[in-house]
């Protein structure tokens, strides 16, 4: 995938007609927010372009990239597929690469492009980068798509325990950042150890990387799995890294911008609110602070950020298929009848699973299995089960299954008082919830369905779709 960089990917998008240049002058607020919102809203997150905003009032000469992986067309380009590829096919292609595991190759270079420009004195992020407020009532200007690199302070030479995570970051002072790291995340484990030891944890924050790097940063990998090795396996080529100026951290050599610094140990400072992916603001909390000691960039760097808020947004696209693929493989370990998992909605608060019934009411067991996976424990609030021949990514088919398969008295189950997701606005108290299972599969023996004949699906018709689409393209010329 080129030089596994943001720029390389933007070139691919441009060739596919999925990148536009916005050259009219815009004011940072509220216009960048509105452009980001609009780009992902086109065809409900399906076909909108990435946008390079090139003429920002007060930031002449600086550029913002937004909606880079906001839509399924852009995701298809990342997977090397035609931009019209249906979502279910993108899911299988994604899952196949995902299964490639963590054995990818790493390569280090010196004099990396991400260090062409070095700022080590008088750092002022408000002047260096075209920052903007993502949502109106956010507490400040946020990095919403940052890859945060830390190492285990007990094993600083262990590359596999180096973590790359995506956390929301509020720019506060000109060289200070507020950051929300969840205690159970890998970065949170590094931070807890450093604070127990009373030391400042070094950190690097990468902005503007290849989308596969962002995917891995936002994916729930195990503590001792390297996000960079995963990215290399996923891309099928080595991940090129370089060392930070100030320390032992590895950053993508072609990143647009790298911020280097240290966590301030054993102190907490106000951060937030921030408009989050369920479409609600999280409140103000006292959180970790980072103090920067260097900013390095490529020449004429592109500042990439994502719009997140009321769904659908780039946040949903970014985490959607890796959440789905993770759950798909976990279920299939013991339940090979599972055909596909759609966990696209609010990070899997609502999930649709396509499965065959091994025997009567089996789908309900699959649902309970889903609800007890690590991710499903707090997410997987609404679980919809459909037959194996229903495409769970095609909501028309899912609605058909609900309409024609669900017997409310038998197939709808509510499990009260289970763990919930604190960011779910109706989780009350935050962190407590319940589960809803709707079984929209066809009854299997020994359960007896009513004696009806359903109209067959016509898989042979798919080949004709391509013919008709080509004819349609010709007709439009």
């Amino acid at each position, binding site marked *: 995938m080129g030089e596994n960089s943001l720029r390389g990917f933007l070139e691919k998008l441009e060739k596919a007609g999925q990148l536009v240049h916005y050259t009219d002058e815009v*004011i*940072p*607020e*509220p216009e960048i927010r509105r452009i980001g919102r609009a780009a992902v809203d086109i065809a409900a997150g399906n076909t909108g372009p990435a946008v390079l905003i090139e003429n920002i*009032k*007060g*930031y*002449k*000469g*600086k550029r913002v990239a937004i909606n880079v992986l906001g839509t399924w067309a852009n995701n298809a380009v990342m997977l090397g597929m035609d931009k019209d590829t249906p979502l279910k096919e993108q899911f299988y292609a994604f899952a196949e690469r995902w299964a490639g595991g963590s054995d990818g190759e790493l390569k280090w270079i010196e004099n990396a492009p991400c260090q062409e420009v070095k700022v080590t004195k008088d750092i*002022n992020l*408000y*002047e*260096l980068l075209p920052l903007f*407020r993502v949502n*109106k*009532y956010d*507490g*400040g*200007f946020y990095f919403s798509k940052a890859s945060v690199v830390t190492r285990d302070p007990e094993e600083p030479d262990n590359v596999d325990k180096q973590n790359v995570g995506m956390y929301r970051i*509020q*720019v*506060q*002072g*000109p060289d200070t950042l*507020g950051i*929300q*790291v*969840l*205690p159970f995340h890998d970065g*949170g484990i590094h*931070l*807890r150890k450093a*604070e*127990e*030891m*009373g030391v400042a944890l070094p950190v690097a924050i990468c902005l503007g990387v290849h989308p596969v790097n962002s995917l891995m940063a936002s994916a729930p990998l195990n503590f001792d799995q390297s996000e960079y090795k995963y990215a290399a396996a996923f891309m099928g080529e080595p991940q090129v890294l370089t060392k930070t100026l100030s320390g032992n951290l590895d950053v993508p050599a072609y990143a647009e911008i790298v911020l280097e610094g240290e966590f301030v140990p*054993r*102190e*907490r*400072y*106000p*951060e937030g*609110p921030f408009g989050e992916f369920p479409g609600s*603001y999280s*409140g*103000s*909390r*006292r*959180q*970790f602070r980072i103090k920067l000691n260097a900013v390095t960039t490529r020449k004429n760097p592109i500042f990439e950020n994502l719009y997140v808020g009321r769904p659908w947004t780039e946040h949903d696209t970014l985490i959607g298929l890796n959440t789905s693929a993770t759950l798909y493989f976990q279920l299939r370990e013991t339940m090979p009848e599972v055909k596909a998992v759609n966990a696209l909605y609010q990070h899997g608060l609502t999930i649709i699973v396509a499965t065959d019934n091994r025997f009567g009411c089996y789908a309900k067991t699959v649902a309970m299995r889903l609800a007890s996976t690590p991710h499903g424990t707090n997410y997987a609030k609404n679980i919809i089960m459909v037959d194996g021949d229903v495409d769970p990514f095609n909501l028309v088919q899912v609605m058909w299954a609900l309409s024609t398969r669900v017997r409310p008295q038998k197939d709808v189950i509510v499990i009260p008082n289970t763990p919930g997701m604190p960011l779910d606005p109706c989780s009350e108290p935050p962190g407590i919830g319940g589960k809803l299972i709707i079984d929209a599969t066809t009854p299997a023996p020994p359960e007896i369905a009513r004696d009806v004949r359903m109209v067959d699906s016509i898989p042979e018709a798919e080949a004709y779709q391509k013919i008709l689409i080509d004819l349609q393209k010709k007709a439009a010329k």
Partner: protein
Amino acid sequence: MKCVRCLTDNASKVAEAPDGSKAWEVYFCNRCDFVWRSSEEPEVIDPDKRDPWFQMADVEVEDIPVFSPVPPLRK
């Protein structure tokens, strides 16, 4: 100067438009960590027009919940 969110006198200018256009300035409150740009919408930067739900005038910093508690030091 006065912070538009917590209304205390803890804010100061931290940046101007870097292209020299004087298009705007950025302000930062070192008490509540709010940041704003002078060119933003009134509902964001005018305390009278901001949604009261987001104001922090009556909030003590010490009362803001801590997300990740500081762990005990190792002996």
